[in-house]
């Protein structure tokens, strides 16, 4: 009769066997290959790489398959794998000015060197379900033009010439590493950006949206959004120079924000910055808005008490792996704690009743 928690081990095994069966789905439907996920669900793959902080489309696709399409679970798989990898060193900063852009748009200038390149975007599609896709996808072919070979300069560079946009202080200081040092507050901008780029897309989006709706509004223009591949280079000590070890796809967003000036800064445009693995447009724009909101102190702005200005609040809650783990841990047994609560509530009720009853008796 005392069976409450016995047999945990067998139960776990059986649950996992059932999970594996459910993951596969109906066996008369063809199984998804990792390559199919990588190629045809590439935006899911991108999100898993970005929030998993590991650039490997094949592993991300595998994680999505294993996670039954639950992206946060897939991100978790990637993070847990990532921590076991040895750290050989750090690459040189990537030069996004040399990006081979698939897409590059500016909302602030109608035209600029490098032009406006729409690239493969959902923008201007009508969101009508394409029922033809349910029957046959076909192999669509897009028209091609000769690729641009020269570098595409950043839009904000053109504003810099006029001294009308705030200058980013340059520094040769090695930035901290979020995955190697515990987060402490107040933090630094490099750490904030690291935290935001791996932060939950939904959370960062919500925070960014709140700034647009007036909680620390900073009126952002998308100065530039660019998506494309950049070379990753690393200094090899034995060689004495840097070599290219591969390339990664990135989305970079720089916002240009209205700024009336403060006690310390003259009126000028200010910037927010977003940089995310893969084609992750929504995330990089959101990241730039939140980055800008978090810079209030550096720019001498007022703290309006808005959530998006609150570094400790934003950074402590942006990580979906931390959040989901802690949220879901309340499923674990809490018999002991609940038992002690039961006893306390019974005791308090008993005492309260004793206090009330004699009074009634007197009446």
């Amino acid at each position, binding site marked *: 009769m005392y069976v409450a928690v016995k047999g*945990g081990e067998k139960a776990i095994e059986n649950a996992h066997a059932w999970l594996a069966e459910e993951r596969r789905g109906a066996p008369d439907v063809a199984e998804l290959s990792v390559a199919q996920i990588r190629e045809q669900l590439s935006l899911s793959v991108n999100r898993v790489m970005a929030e998993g902080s590991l650039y490997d489309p094949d592993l991300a696709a595998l994680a999505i398959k294993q996670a039954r399409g639950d992206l946060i679970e897939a991100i978790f798989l990637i993070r847990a794998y990532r921590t076991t990898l040895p750290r050989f060193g750090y690459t040189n900063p990537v030069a996004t000015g040399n990006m081979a852009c698939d897409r590059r748009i500016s909302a602030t200038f109608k035209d600029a060197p490098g032009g406006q390149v729409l690239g493969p975007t959902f923008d201007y599609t009508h969101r009508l379900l394409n029922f033809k896709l349910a029957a046959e996808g076909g192999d669509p072919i897009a028209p091609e033009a000769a690729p641009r070979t020269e570098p595409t300069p950043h839009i904000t560079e053109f504003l810099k010439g006029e001294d009308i946009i705030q200058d980013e202080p340059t520094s040769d200081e090695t930035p901290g590493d979020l995955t190697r040092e515990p987060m402490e507050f107040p933090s630094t901008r490099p750490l904030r950006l690291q935290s935001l780029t791996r932060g939950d897309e939904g959370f960062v989006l919500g925070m960014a949206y709140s700034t647009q709706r007036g909680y620390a509004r900073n009126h952002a223009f998308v100065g530039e959004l660019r998506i494309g591949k950049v070379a990753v280079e690393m200094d090899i000590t034995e060689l004495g120079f840097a070599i290219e070890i591969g390339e990664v796809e990135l989305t970079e967003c720089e916002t240009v924000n209205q700024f009336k000036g403060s006690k310390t800064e003259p009126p000028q445009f200010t910037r927010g910055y977003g940089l995310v693995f893969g084609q992750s447009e929504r995330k990089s724009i959101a990241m730039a808005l939140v980055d800008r909101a978090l810079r209030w102190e550096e720019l001498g702005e007022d703290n309006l008490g808005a959530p998006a200005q609150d570094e400790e609040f934003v950074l*402590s809650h942006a990580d979906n792996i931390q959040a*989901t*783990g*802690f949220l879901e841990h309340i499923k674990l047994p809490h018999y002991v*704690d609940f038992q002690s609560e039961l006893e306390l509530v019974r005791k308090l009720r008993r005492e309260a009743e004793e206090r009330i009853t004699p009074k009634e008796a007197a009446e």
Partner: protein
Amino acid sequence: MSDYNFAYLDEQTKRMIRRAILKGLAVPGYQVPFASREMPMPYGWGTGGVQVSAATLTPEDTFKVIDQGADDTTNAVSIRKFFENTAGVATTEETEKATVIQTRHRIPEAELTEDQILVYQVPIPEPLRFLEPRETETRKMHALEEYGLMHVKLYEDISQHGAISTSYAHPVRVSGRYVMDPSPIPKFDNPKLEMDAIQLFGAGREQRIYAVPPHTKVVSLDFEDYPFEATKADHPCDLCGAEDSYLDELIMDDAGNRMFVCSDTDYCRSRRAAGHEGRLAKEDAA
């Protein structure tokens, strides 16, 4: 699982964690920040305890894992299996035989010795967190020994409910200095925090490690006129008859009949093996 290092974590990471543990032991009750790693189990499911255990275990150790006092609760099973696979250490359910015990929410009933290490899983290491949500503030409060807020909270409990209305995770003062969260152990366990064994606390998600060295003074916060009270259900164990152990309450039938059994399954088992019998011991055997 030879693809992974002994006890899963790489040696560099273990060294970093050991440094944090040593610092924690040197400054009892102080929360040492450490660069917690992502583990293959979720945050909030014992990643802090698992990292501390991984950094503490040697191949000669015998490991025991309990959750809610029991060796066979699902998450305890899962963590024990993890170390069986990644460290290959001997495991046991017997408290006396273990050299390292990882626990969630309980201190074993059997008295621990100086040859043992008790590793706690901690969800929220900051005892002041629910009074002040900001880490920047609470660290300052600890630095200045500014614990007035906590006493005000306990006082408000008394004025509202006539008693300090904590049931688990009752705050303690360690070695006369730091106020510490003993993790969500029931109040009943608080007096046991003064023990011969080393006590290590790991909070993975919150990136904190803290410790209570052996024979350290640990005082549960209270007032002279409202002294701390270690409470438990007012019953003996229905299986082993123990009057001194913390009890789980089980609902037995649709009529809502209850039975009370030791939450420490090993304690209950060893008492029954020694011939002790509770009210329902005969029925259980049947």
